[in-house]
């Protein structure tokens, strides 16, 4: 151990001093170089490697113009991802970016579009390959239109018609004169109208 003098100065020889100095400079340089490798300069040059890439999920490639193209998004939002998540291709591939199916399906959409196919032809190609269940909703034609889309509304409409008929019948029954066990009120029509107005103003 280096002896310490009473005036708090360290007793070192020149060689020890130089060695310590060089070590400090090399250490600073080494840490600086390490820092460059870890943290890239803002917005310029290559981005540095992170310590544990595996824990950051699947390695991705940089986003391309096709990834954000609104035209492809419209198509992909009509097609269901085949991974079983229940989401459309666009939503699935951008939800947590872990799905290994949706990026492939996206590439398939882009490839078909680059071959000159229209949006409908792309969708038809998907139906041909994966069946009708690849659509986020059944096509609005034939059986699906009448039994799928329209049936609930038809049921509600028919029930509404039935309800109107029943209510009208009940209203006629109520209006028909007949024996009643309820008390009779000794009041003029004007008084009754006033009472009715007061009752309407009551809470509930």
């Amino acid at each position: 151990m280096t002896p310490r003098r009473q005036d708090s100065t360290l007793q070192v020889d020149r060689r020890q001093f130089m060695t310590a100095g060089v070590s400090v400079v090399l250490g600073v340089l080494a840490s600086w170089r390490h820092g460059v490798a870890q943290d890239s300069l803002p917005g310029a040059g290559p981005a540095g490697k992170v310590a544990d890439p595996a824990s950051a999920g699947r390695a991705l490639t940089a986003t391309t113009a096709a990834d954000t193209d609104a035209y492809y998004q419209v198509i992909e939002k009509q097609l269901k991802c085949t991974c079983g998540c229940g989401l459309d291709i666009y939503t699935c591939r951008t939800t947590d970016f872990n799905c290994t199916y949706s990026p492939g399906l996206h590439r398939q959409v882009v490839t078909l579009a680059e071959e000159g196919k229209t949006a409908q032809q792309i969708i038809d190609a998907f139906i041909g390959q994966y069946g009708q269940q690849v659509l986020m909703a059944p096509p609005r034609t034939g059986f699906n239109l009448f039994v799928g889309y329209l049936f609930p509304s038809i049921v509600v409409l028919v029930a509404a018609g039935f309800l109107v008929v029943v209510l009208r019948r009940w209203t006629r029954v109520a209006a028909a004169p007949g024996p009643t066990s309820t008390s009779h009120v000794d009041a003029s029509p004007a008084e009754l109208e006033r009472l009715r107005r007061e009752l309407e103003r009551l809470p509930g």
Partner: protein
Amino acid sequence: MTLLGHLSLWLAFLVGLWGAITGFAGGLQDRADLQQSARRAVFAMFAALALATICLEIAIFRHDFNVAYVAARTSRNLPTFYLWSALYSGQQGSLLFWATVLSLFATLAQVLTGARHRAYLPFVAAVTCLVATFFVTVMLFAANPFERLAFTPVDGQGMNPQLQNPGMVFHPPMLYLGYISITIPFAFAIAALLSKKLDGDWLVAIRKWTLVSWLFLSVGLLIGMWWAYVELGWGGYWSWDPVENAALLPWLVMTAFLHSVMVQEKRGMLKKWNLALVLGAWLLSIFGTFLTRSGVIASVHSFTQSPVGYFFLAFILVAGIGTAVLYAIRLPLLEADATLESMVSREASFFFNNLLLVGLAFSVLWGTLYPILSEWLQGTKVSVGPPFFNLVNIPLGLLLLALMGIGPLIAWRRASFPNLERQFAVPAVTGVFVLLILLVAGMRELGALMAIGLGGFVTATVIQEFGRGASARHRQYGEPLALAVLRLVGRNRRRYGGYIVHMGIVLLFIAFSGMAFKTETQATLRPGESATLRSPYGHLYTFTHLGISQYDALNRRVTAALVDISLDGKPIGRLKTEKRQHVDALGRNTFEPSTEVGIRSGLREDLYVVLGGLVNGTEQAVYRFTINPLVWWVWFGGYVLVAGGLIVLWPGGGPPAVRRTQAGYAVKLESKA
């Protein structure tokens, strides 16, 4: 402990069977000894199931990985908070939770029901015991939470990362409490049918229970939406997933019941309908459980797929047929006391409100089951997602919203033209005014225009109702207006609490319409680089990627990305979004990396940032930036809805309407001329 738990299940099974037999026999033969035995069986069943639950909790907290359920759902490094939720995070545990809570509710029903309704209790004991016994049977023969492994793993597999969220600690129990508590009104309805006491008294006995279950279902649904939004990362809160739909179905039917029961209380009408709604709500809650657990329709909740679905299917069939037969036999006893005086009356509006609510429930059920139906009838597999449900249900929802404003403006029995004119003037003008403002502002989205315009109409209705009531108190008692409003609500909690619930629904509808204006983009950024996104309000947001940091947390390795945000060039804050690789106590990966979304929530819009991943393991990050308008109002609308529900539920506030109005409306107005 697991042996004790297993024995407790068997005890609960035997006691439950005994309670069901003695309850039905005691009620039908009017034998006090059997009735007393059924009552005690309910208490004993609760004790046995509570003991079983404690045993499973002890196994979870002791990390007894020899128990298959504990090994599959937890790990040594799982935070204590989530050890509690491990009880119901899987099939077997949630069945135990369900049975235990049901037996607790059954006990409360026995203890809290007043002497006036004691005649129903033996049947209530029988029905609750029977339902709880079914759940115990499923556990004993298909999904035993105490099943042991042939070996003891060093550590468990851990909990699914998506379930490690505070929302998932509260969402399932709230929803379960809602589902389970419907059994009590159902049991009273069956009791009324069996005992032929169908005079409406049973409705008074179940009033609080129906509100409690509606409130739990509401809270469960809202927390579920919040969890989906903050945890799943796809940027929305409702995807019409079959399991979400399954929870919505009983909620819609219970909401219909809470409205139609007022017609029976005030006018003695809709007896058959109200009974059918209570029976239907319960059957739908069991059906929802079947959907969740059978995996019959593919969904994100597929973790629950197992053979227990067959048990549920058999139970639904038996319970459904039994209930329908009993209901049909008793129909002649359910004749209405009164007739309708006018088509333009409050009661008529309630009929249409019920039609729409039940119509919506049918529509949701139809869409949920349509893939099965299509495969069965036309041999084609189809998927039914949000485009289908939005197209079919939004028009019905908007009609319902309109009726929510119309109903309270129409008088009971018969509304006169001057009355309608006086009531509708301000709300209708307000609705049209709101619509015009939106059109002038450039909004062209039809659904959103309708939702916000009708929202204005309903809001004006509610404010008018509060204003008139408070003004009357102010004039009559000289109370300051603020005090008058408070006392108005306090004295008639059911009516004004209901209006507050309506306001919550309005806020929810308006907030839902905001999703029509969602905007998003994807970008790959190096540290220091930025991406921009314009909000629907015209502001420009700039997102600047600051860098990536990696560190270890309790049970995960975190890759965190920091993003600086500025609005029209002005810095407004910083967001963090993460990738999490969960590990067990030995440092082994347990699940695929999951994503934690960064959210900055505001009154106008939410900024929703997802870290997609890194490019080749560098700090160059792939992001999705989304602007979700009005999402904050979904949660605020939820608070308002729950607050209104609590006001309605709160004890006191004047005598129940059924007693008050029976006398008032017994007088038929007739001219002496």
